[in-house]
């Protein structure tokens, strides 16, 4: 089942064609790799899908619905959550507070309710939130770090945290922007195992922008290669590995 597809997605800045006529699609429960040399337009594509950048032309269709032009929070609400290259955590808050903030929207609390709510009512609500938060943290094995300030966590753990924060919104599609960057081999293994567990247990579709070729080739089911904003190849990892155009674009891949 097709979760998301882009149709002739184009983004031009004045004089610069960042993304041109990109047709991309990802299915439920599919781990799609989006690769390309630096500056190819991968993060721009994410920014377009998540609504952070306005589209110049083309469409973004999610579960049959046209979501082109949706603002980032609207995109998140309908089920697409992205992470950022630099860790997407709230650094000054504890891990548990990070989860509380991430789950805030889902708990449906408004401004007036917050002001007039008694402490007893808030504690009761918090009990529910803590329960959900612990469940999510357990997926990544982070529940013992609940009271640690997120900014003090090592880089690899922060990356795990950011995926769990993204998961709080119960997304059907995850956009992971270079999740492996800055991680050592062990951290990479932990993170990719988490990503695949999410895919397998929840049927979440995942688009992963990555530079780490080993990870992409080993774990992605399908790969789309872009260069200079245009799709130059797509296929399974073995097809991509032998594609002349990809090799040309990528002199010196890992």
């Amino acid at each position: 089942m097709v979760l998301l597809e882009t149709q002739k997605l184009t983004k031009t800045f004045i004089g610069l064609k960042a993304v041109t006529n990109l047709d991309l699609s990802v299915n439920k429960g599919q781990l799609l790799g989006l690769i390309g040399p630096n500056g190819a337009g991968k993060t721009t594509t994410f920014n377009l899908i998540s609504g952070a950048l306005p589209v110049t032309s083309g469409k973004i269709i999610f579960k049959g619905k046209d979501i082109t032009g949706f603002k980032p929070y609207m995109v998140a609400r309908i089920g697409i959550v992205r992470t950022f290259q630099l860790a997407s955590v709230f650094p000054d808050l504890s891990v548990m507070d990070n989860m509380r903030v991430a789950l805030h929207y889902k708990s449906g609390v408004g401004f007036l309710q917050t002001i007039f709510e008694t402490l007893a009512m808030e504690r009761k609500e918090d009990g529910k939130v803590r329960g959900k938060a612990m469940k999510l943290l357990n997926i990544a094995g982070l529940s013992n770090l609940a009271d640690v300030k997120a900014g003090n966590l090592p880089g690899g753990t922060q990356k795990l945290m950011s995926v769990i924060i993204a998961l709080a919104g119960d997304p059907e599609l995850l956009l992971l922007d270079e999740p492996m960057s800055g991680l050592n081999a062990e951290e990479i293994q932990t993170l990719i195992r988490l990503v695949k567990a999410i895919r397998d247990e929840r049927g979440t579709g995942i688009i992963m922008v990555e530079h780490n070729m080993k990870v992409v080739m080993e774990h992605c089911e399908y790969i789309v290669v872009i260069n200079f904003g245009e799709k130059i190849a797509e296929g399974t990892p073995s097809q991509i590995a032998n594609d002349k155009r990809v090799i040309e674009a990528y002199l010196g891949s890992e």
Partner: protein
Amino acid sequence: MKSGTWQKSFSLLILLFLFVLPGFMHSPRYLSLFDEGFLNIVLALSMYSMWTLGYVNAATPTFFGLGAYTVAILMMKANLPFWLAFPMAGVIPALIAFILGFQGLKVRGTYFLILTLAFCEFMGWLFTSWKSLFGGQTGLYPVPQPVIHAFGHTINFAASLVPYYYLALILALITGLFYFRLYTSRLGRVWDSIGKTEDILANTGISVFTQKQICFAVSCFFAGLAGAVYAPFMSIVTPNQFNFWQGVTIILGVLVGGTYSPLGAIIGTVFMAVLSMLLQGYSQYQPLIWGPILILTLLFMPSGLIALPMQIINKIKELTTRKIVQS
């Protein structure tokens, strides 16, 4: 948490002291100083709540002024009683803030500062030029004194400054309680996360823009209410009571006190109020003194006065353990 109960009991004691103070402090000069101090606390809290979002509201004095003018105009021209005009003086600035926010909150902090500065100057001009409504340079005078009937007595605001003292104190108390409640609640945690991580927040489904709108409108609501107390207190409302410089003093209060909690804003404002009281003879040198205070604070006390006790205690601990190790 031990320091929490410490803080609470201390604050309660100070509150009690403030409530009984007019019993033995009768000097109108001091009553009026405290009154202005309480109103400044409300403005400081208003400024603080926008600060935590990453915005400096340079037009805080203007919203204060809008509240003052609203009360004066409604009481003088529409003959409304004070208890009706008072809430309007909060609602109208809030509405204007809401409208301003549609553009102002979509841009980054620097541009918001410029926009509010421009608004401050524009309103200053409007207050002066629209003579039929605002009374021009000479302003609106005399602002009718509120007459409040409570518990079988009539509280006469015209007779002494004591009713104004309590009105301002109660307003400051309500504003303080509101913001303390807010910033310890889960919504407060979310608002605190807007500053540098608003993109991550948007990705959890929260409409950050709506939150900013609410915060801005509420902060100007309170600023307006403070103005509503100020107008009859001064008996006159003129354009030059509300200028950019007032805003600078408020910002300084927030900075010096500490930008990490509403209590910091309050402490810093009190500090600045005491300082300006001591410097009363030298008011023309104020800018000369405020500048160095700002620089010294940023250099040596970036966490503000509120962090000072903990820092001193830690320093003492550090020094005493060193001595023990040495001996």
